[in-house]
């Protein structure tokens, strides 16, 4: 009791503040601090500081920024959507049928192992440098990780629980909706996460290679001009957007769906 009171007021205040700030925010603040510190020793063309980056970003025309971000988000969205659709269908087919599994598993692994860049190049050559080719390349390159996740999820469905439901007279619909799908949901969420990560990286690459707008295009443009502050600013912008999707949509969804799961202790 007295030990705490004897500490200087400032330290007490700091300890209280420390408790209030979430760890995530602290780690971001620490990162910005280190970034700022390092930037003191480097030229603006190599590593601009946080403030310089923000200033550089604000020099852009905001209508322009909005346009490029919108184009990128459209591509990420379309790529994500089709990758999820293909991945879920292929994954379910492979999980349900042993025959289809042996027909498809090698190809899923091949597509997974092929660098995304290859699909981007092939797609541009075959379909031309257009939005269609872009979405094709992104969805083809991203679907295997979803397929593999869903495939494992379907194979892992506990047949004993399904039997239980049958014994108690559950209709096929109830068995699917209330017994089988809840067992696969975690795999859907996990694959959505991975998919989002892959699609946005690929989108940036596609835009850099063959589109005349979007964040990837901007990155290339500023890189050509050696304006590092703009390169970092655009990267940061995209990061913030993707992280927001993760934290505002996927995370709460997961918390809501899987409240029943025990915490894992190692």
């Amino acid at each position: 009791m007295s030990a705490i009171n004897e500490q200087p007021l400032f330290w007490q205040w700091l300890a209280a503040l420390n408790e209030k700030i979430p760890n995530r925010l602290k780690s971001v603040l620490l990162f910005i601090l280190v970034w700022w510190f390092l930037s003191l020793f480097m030229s603006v063309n190599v590593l601009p500081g946080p403030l310089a980056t923000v200033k550089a970003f604000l020099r852009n025309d905001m209508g322009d920024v909005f346009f490029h971000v919108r184009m990128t988000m459209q591509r990420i969205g379309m790529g994500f959507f089709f990758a999820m659709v293909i991945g879920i269908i292929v994954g379910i087919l492979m999980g349900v049928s042993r025959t289809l599994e042996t027909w498809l598993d090698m190809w899923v692994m091949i597509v997974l192992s092929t660098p995304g860049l290859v699909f981007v190049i092939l797609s541009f050559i075959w379909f031309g440098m257009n939005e269609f080719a872009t979405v094709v390349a992104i969805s083809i390159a991203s679907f295997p990780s979803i397929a593999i996740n869903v495939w494992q999820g379907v194979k892992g469905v506990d047949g004993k629980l399904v039997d239980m439901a049958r014994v108690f007279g559950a209709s096929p619909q109830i068995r699917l909706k209330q017994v089988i799908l809840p067992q696969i949901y975690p795999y859907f969420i996990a694959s959505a996460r991975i998919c989002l990560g892959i699609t946005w990286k690929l989108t940036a690459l596609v835009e850099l290679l063959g589109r005349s707008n979007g964040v990837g295009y901007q990155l290339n443009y500023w890189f050509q001009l050696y304006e590092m502050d703009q390169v970092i600013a655009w990267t940061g912008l995209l990061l913030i957007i993707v992280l927001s999707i993760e934290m505002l949509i996927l995370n709460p969804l997961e918390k809501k769906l899987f409240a029943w799961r025990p915490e894992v202790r190692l």
Partner: protein
Amino acid sequence: MSKPLIKIRDLSKVFTQKSGCLTAIENVNMDVFDKEFVCILGPSGCGKSTLLNILARLDGAYEGSVEVGGVALRSTKIRMAYVFQDPRLLPWLTVEQNLRFVINCLGIDKGLSDTKVRTYLEMVGLRGFEHSFPYQLSGGMQQRASIARALCINPDILLMDEPFSGLDEITARSLRRELTRIWQETEKTIIFVTHNWYEASYLADRILIMNQRPGNIAKEVTVDIDRPRSYEDPRVFEFSSRLVQDFLSLIGGDDVAR
């Protein structure tokens, strides 16, 4: 005696695998009467669970005839519930929701379900755990929940497949005692599969002993110990050891002596 509730005649089940055919049970004949507590006793792999799965309509590919309530098994209106060896609760539902799940499966009136859920959870001693998830309960409590789930649809027949064999002896004992109490209270017909001779002698009105490969009913005995029985009753002990002796001599002593 009155007409049997379950009548099984010449029941056989063959599993066809790549490596050949495996006859799980062959020419099983048995009757189970209303409100009777029957134990099916036998060593592992004698086809006890196969028999129970056929009765539970999990397995429709068999030969022979199975009648329940006077009509063929597939068209019977007699309601059956199953208590598995493992609790098989849906892990994403609370205990209460697990009970509601099976009530909804059968489309039973939802207004009634509230009181039913509460009544049966109380009966198995899970009052206060309605909103717990299965992982928060011990193995014994999960099995209690699974018994409550089976009871809450008010079945005519309760099928139980070694429900206590995965539990520690103390928990198993208290659950056995409660099961006999619940059985007397609710007047269900129970078919209880076990490999535990003592458990069978303590619980059953009648014991059907199964032989191995191919499984069939080798012997049928009536347990003439009056209820309520105590688990430590020397008569139960005597009965079960006599049962083992009889069975060993039945299947040929030298095979066992070796």
